[in-house]
């Protein structure tokens, strides 16, 4: 009987490719963010609304869209004059570093790009374990969900740097308490930067976009 000690991360290969992605992006001056949320929290709407704000700040960006099927989301983004590439994951519930690595040649063909927005598959569990090579993970939750979400899905909140609480226009019509949601998120991750937005009214979008642009430009 042989016992072999291995002692490595199960996702070591994914982490290696993520590190290569991170290096390739940084060499070309592109800052990448990974947007995660439950399905329907408003990831694509947030990107659409950010487009005008980032344009006004002179920040070029491209979007890689992860979905199980179809190219509905990339078509939505393209309507705003933003280059978008759809990755269909088939049955997989998350993007991985390998899939993202295949999109990088396309990203580098786009001119004047400072920011790459990777929209992950709508899922609050699996994306937490897969590093894609991003510099920032942005969690989106909406006022149509429960304000206790951070306590129920701690891994993904703990893996994020920023939290966008979206659909704040709905809050008065639901039992969602924005103050409680903030407290719960900070309990799980005291370092989270929290923003409140409504893609319907446009509230808070400017503040979020200016913060993001600041981080992208400061990081260079």
């Amino acid at each position, binding site marked *: *009987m*042989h*016992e*072999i*000690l*291995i*002692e*490595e*991360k*199960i*996702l*070591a*290969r*994914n982490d290696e490719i993520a590190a290569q992605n991170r290096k390739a992006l940084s060499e070309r001056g592109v800052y990448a963010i990974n947007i995660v949320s439950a399905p329907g929290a408003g990831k694509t709407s947030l990107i659409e609304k950010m487009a005008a704000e980032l344009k006004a700040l002179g920040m070029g960006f491209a979007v890689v869209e992860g979905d199980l099927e179809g190219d509905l989301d990339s078509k939505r983004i393209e309507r705003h004059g933003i280059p978008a590439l759809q990755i269909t994951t088939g049955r*997989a*519930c*998350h993007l*991985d570093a390998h899939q993202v690595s295949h999109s990088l040649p396309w990203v580098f063909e786009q001119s004047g790009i400072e920011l790459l927005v990777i929209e992950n598959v709508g899922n609050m*569990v*699996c994306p*937490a*374990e*897969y590093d894609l090579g991003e510099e920032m993970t942005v969690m989106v939750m909406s006022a149509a969900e429960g304000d206790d979400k951070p*306590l129920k899905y*701690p*891994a*993904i909140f*703990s893996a994020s740097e920023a939290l966008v609480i979206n659909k704040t226009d709905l809050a008065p019509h639901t039992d969602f308490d924005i103050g409680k949601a903030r407290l719960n998120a900070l*309990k*799980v991750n*005291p370092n989270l930067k929290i923003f409140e937005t409504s893609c319907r009214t446009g509230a808070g979008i400017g503040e979020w976009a200016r913060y993001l642009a600041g981080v992208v430009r400061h990081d260079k």
Partner: protein
Amino acid sequence: MHEMSITRTLLETVRQEMEKADIKTLRSVRIRVGELTAVEPEALRFCFEASVKGTPFEGASLEIEEPPLKGGCLTCGLVFGTTLFERTCPGCGDSSVEIAGGNELDIVSMEGV
């Protein structure tokens, strides 16, 4: 459900190690799944059993260590068992506490002949 893709990645590592060490029959694989990971040990066990059927890994057992969540105090250095929602060091009372364990997702070792 990403437990399936994690199982596939795990078995690929096992296959490479078996080849290197010239092992023909796998007896067991030991892994570590921390409390804070987004991975469910029972789902992983189910995927492992389903994946090894009819392969050279059939009959091998999956042993899972489940390390609990630990906090590490940035002020006094104490490492202590904690919950995600408790951020105070029991040693010095400071609240600058970082996660010091419980996020492991590792392959530890394997046995075979």
